[in-house]
């Protein structure tokens, strides 16, 4: 169980933000931080990792205190057992893939976990290559493996898949699900991608202006109504074309464009660019605004 209750004054370009995050995360959960840029998602991860000091507050993890400003406790990042995947992956360019993983292991740590990770993440053929010779998806796999070498208590993923194309993203989502279960991790993910959040996470925290404004299971958070649909997909409206008495709405779902018929009254609140959920009750798909 992770308990977080921290305050910090954060300075953005021209404004100040009162960052105050309060939440609890159960062991073994995969939670997502969702929100606009500058809402404080990365800051939350950095405070957890000890890379950013809060002004006041506390963080306890499995009863151990990582931060407790009242009692002047601040555990250095080195002392927290954390796996962190950075947005730019932060692979060490001077080391091969294998050396990157070996560097991460602690003194006297069993090297078996490295062999295991290389096998699970399918890095065998790449292990002697330098990071700069790898593709984005391959680098991401290395970064993910490296973060797991120390068998961390908490895995922090800062938009790990944002820079990758759709197909590779799907594959890496599977890897994340697999390692999360395999190593019984508590994982905190920062993501913008609603589809990804729906697929991966148990719970989602929506951040606005440095505060958690909503939390819950993803399907509840991202849809206003409870829909008992036969199928649901998240997509984005690309085009709305009137045709006779109805409208034809083109929705981008993952990498497919789907055409849905809607009537004018349904479409009053929707415009091009909106994120929508396409759900079907019986046989006709209905669009629901989610963002």
């Amino acid at each position, binding site marked *: 169980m992770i308990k977080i209750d921290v305050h910090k004054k954060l300075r953005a370009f021209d404004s100040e933000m009162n960052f105050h995050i309060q939440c609890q995360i159960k062991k073994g959960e995969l939670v997502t931080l969702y929100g606009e840029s500058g809402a404080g998602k990365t800051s939350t991860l950095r405070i957890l990792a000890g890379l950013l000091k809060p002004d006041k507050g506390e963080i306890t993890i499995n009863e151990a205190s990582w931060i407790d400003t009242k009692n002047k406790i601040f555990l250095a990042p080195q002392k927290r057992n*954390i796996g962190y995947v*950075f*947005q730019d992956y932060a692979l060490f360019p001077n080391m091969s893939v294998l050396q990157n993983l070996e560097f991460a292991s602690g003194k006297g740590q069993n090297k078996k976990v490295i062999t295991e990770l290389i096998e699970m993440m399918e890095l065998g053929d790449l292990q002697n290559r330098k990071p700069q010779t790898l593709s984005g998806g391959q680098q991401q796999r290395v970064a993910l493996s490296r973060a797991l070498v120390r068998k961390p208590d908490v895995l922090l993923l800062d938009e790990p898949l944002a820079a990758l194309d759709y197909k590779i993203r799907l594959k890496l989502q599977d890897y994340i699900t697999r390692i999360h279960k395999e190593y019984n991790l508590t994982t905190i993910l920062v993501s913008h991608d609603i589809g990804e959040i729906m697929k991966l996470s148990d719970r989602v925290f929506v951040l606005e202006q440095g505060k958690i404004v909503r939390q819950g299971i993803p399907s509840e958070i991202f849809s206003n109504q409870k829909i008992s649909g036969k199928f649901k997909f998240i997509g984005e409206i690309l085009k709305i074309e009137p045709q006779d008495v109805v409208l034809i709405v083109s929705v981008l779902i993952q990498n497919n464009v789907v055409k849905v018929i809607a009537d004018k009254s349904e479409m009053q609140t929707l415009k091009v660019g909106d994120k929508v959920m396409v759900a079907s009750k019986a046989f006709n798909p209905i669009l629901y605004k989610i963002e």
Partner: protein
Amino acid sequence: MNWAPLLITFKLAFVTTAILLIISVPLAYWMVNTKSRSKPLIETLVSMPLVLPPTVLGFYFLVAFSPGNAFGNWINEWLGLKLVFSFGGLVVASIIYSLPFMVHPIQSGLSILPHSLTEASQVMGKSKWTTLFKVLLPNCKASLLTGIVLAFAHTVGEFGVVLMIGGSIPGRTKVASIAIYDEVEAMNYSAANFYATVLFVITFCILLMVYLINGGYLKRFWK
């Protein structure tokens, strides 16, 4: 032909460069990472030798290290070091004089590395020193090489400082650049030409090596 001035020059350059490397790496690392208010002051002091006439430095060294005053006397008595008109004095003066040539490349090399490398190493439980030596420095080898070579070449090319603090004592503090000056004054052009040619060729080769290595030409050649 008298080789002593050349030997002294290169001995001085080697010793100075070695000591500078030991000093400059932590100093550059500190300057990149510090949030201290004294940083601009330290940066200014490090850069001063770039703009100050060497004679100014030489003059202050003479005054400071002269056994005639308290500080120079203290060094002389307690450490047994006589820094005026000695090789030791040349080394100390050269270190300060060539400091920016070593510190600046290392500083800029370290500062362009993404900060996430340091942070990644930290969350893996690695200390600052391990991070510096295993992660940061190996990723700015070109800057290190540039720093080493510039400091070396600059020390070889010193004149004013070494003349003032060393006093041009043959076999002890007379370096090649001073020897050239002396030979020209004595109208002994062939000796001057000898020293000058050696210095020219060696410094040319050293700088050429740096550009070849840092430009990746050698790697291509070996392949």
